[in-house]
């Protein structure tokens, strides 16, 4: 096996429920993701893309098939999270309302095995805040509810800048924010990628965004990956009818979208 493969999935499946109510969330999915790649998983609601993200994070264990991180199965989530981190959709759901933001950014270092010294933590938090264009003094003593959605999403990114993981799994990081903030956040993510050489997995329903950022796109539909390939091929020459549908449903300013 090549050493630069980060995630390797072979025929993984994940089920929820029992008997008649058994639902298949990920069905016989195989893929390899190499080091430094940006991969987007695109699909509509309920297609299983978030479950796939949680499998990559080690939060779910697939019911069948083999899922390897750097050639080994994920045994300890704590070890896994030292290298693999995530950004979620709703930043308000990710921060505790009762603690100040700075405290929580500092607490995030608790997960690292070789925890840096107090001074170094302070310094790294400051650096991370500056990296997302927030002056450390601006959030001093502030609590999550005092900031706007766009600012909170930046705090989530600051956490990633501070921890410097090897792999980032971003589950709909921009679906709650408006277009300007989205462009900003993508800017920061690309900066992160350039600085740390991370592998990024984007989970999104926005194929336009996937096209812009990724090296490879996986299209998911009803628990299966129905198409995978380079963004140019997937968007210009889609093979699967589901991809065609996803592309057609985007309101584009130059194309008729819906009949009035």
């Amino acid at each position, binding site marked *: 096996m090549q050493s630069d493969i980060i995630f390797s999935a072979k025929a993984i499946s994940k089920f929820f429920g029992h008997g008649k109510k058994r639902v298949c969330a990920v069905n016989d999915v195989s893929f390899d993701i190499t080091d430094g790649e940006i991969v987007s998983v695109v699909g*509509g*609601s309920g297609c299983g893309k978030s479950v796939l993200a949680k499998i990559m994070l080690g939060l779910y264990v697939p019911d069948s098939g083999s899922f390897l991180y750097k050639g080994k199965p994920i045994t300890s989530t704590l070890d896994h999270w030292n290298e693999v981190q995530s950004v979620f959709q709703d930043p308000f759901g990710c921060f505790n309302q009762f603690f100040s933001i700075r405290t929580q950014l500092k607490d995030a270092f608790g997960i690292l095995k070789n925890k840096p010294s107090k001074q170094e933590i302070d310094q790294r938090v400051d650096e991370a805040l500056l990296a997302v264009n927030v002056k450390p003094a601006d959030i001093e003593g502030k609590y999550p509810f005092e900031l706007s959605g766009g600012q909170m999403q930046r705090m989530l990114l600051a956490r990633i800048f501070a921890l410097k993981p090897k792999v980032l799994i971003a589950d709909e990081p921009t679906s709650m924010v408006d277009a300007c*903030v989205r462009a900003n956040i993508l800017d920061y993510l690309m900066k992160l990628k350039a600085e740390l050489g991370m592998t990024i997995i984007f989970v999104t329903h926005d194929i336009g965004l996937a096209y812009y950022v990724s090296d490879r796109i996986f299209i998911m539909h009803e628990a299966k990956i129905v198409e995978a390939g380079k963004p140019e091929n997937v968007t210009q020459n889609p093979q699967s009818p589901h991809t065609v549908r996803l592309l057609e449903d985007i309101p584009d300013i130059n194309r008729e979208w819906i009949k009035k």
Partner: protein
Amino acid sequence: MAHILEVKDLSLHYLTRFGQKINAVTDVSFTMKQGEILGIAGESGCGKSTLVNGLMGLFISPLYPTSGDVLVNGESLMNRNPDDIRRNVLSQKVSMIPQGAFNALNPTRKIKDIAADVMAAHSENQKLNKQQIYERLRERFDLFGMETEHILNSFPIQLTAGERQRSVIGISTLLNPKVVIADEPTSALDVTTQKVVIKMIFDLLEKNIFSTMIFITHELPLLRHVAHNIAIMYAGEFVEYGTSVQVVHDPRHPYTKALMGAMLSADADQKNRKPTTIEGAPPSLSKKIEGCRFAERCPSARPECRQKTQSMRMVEGRLVRCDYAE
């Protein structure tokens, strides 16, 4: 033809517990004819949702009207008590489709009971009994081409996101309102479901359930297809107002240009284009603002922009709040 909705220099403010005044909406004026769809776009916190409350005449503390007037069919909605508004205006004259369908529906009650409550609260004078209300609900939901029995007898959690949003639209338009205000009805949905929901809205328009709509979103490409006219809002003011083709394809205000530049698309020629970003944040609305509100972030700002307050002026058939737009 008379205007169905007339907004004259509407300003709204919030009053905080500490007596601080936040001017969320400043001098908004526009009129709408029967059958018109107006799109309002702008970033989070620019006053879109506050404006919606103002247009419904719903002034619940800490929101207060500062000045101006809102007229629906010539009838003013200002300075009326909330009870009067609920009985005589909401759902019948002006109705809102809320943003998060899941938050708008009571999780402990079935869709039919939620709908019955809405009808009972807003049409007290009609004195309908429960059976009549259910009958009307069935009729209306059959029109949508949805599985009426399944949806009416389900709890919100048993429905998909698309079904929930369509139920909410159905409930909001039960009493054939004159003006419907849709506050980001599709921003929580994926593109496929979004299209289904928009189709339903067009279906209702075609069946004359309602004819005049204000559609609020931050997705400009979506407005291009939905709205006849588009207004762009920034820091509580309208900065550009024109037809959807004018605003989307040929924006003139620097803020509208930046918004359009920030859009991502799956088109071939877009791959190497860098989406524009606007650094900084909108000005604080609790202080009096001198000069143009966008000057701090504007790429083409001039020194005089920071002193001189800009007003709306005509530029090639649309209104723009910038003295230097061409």
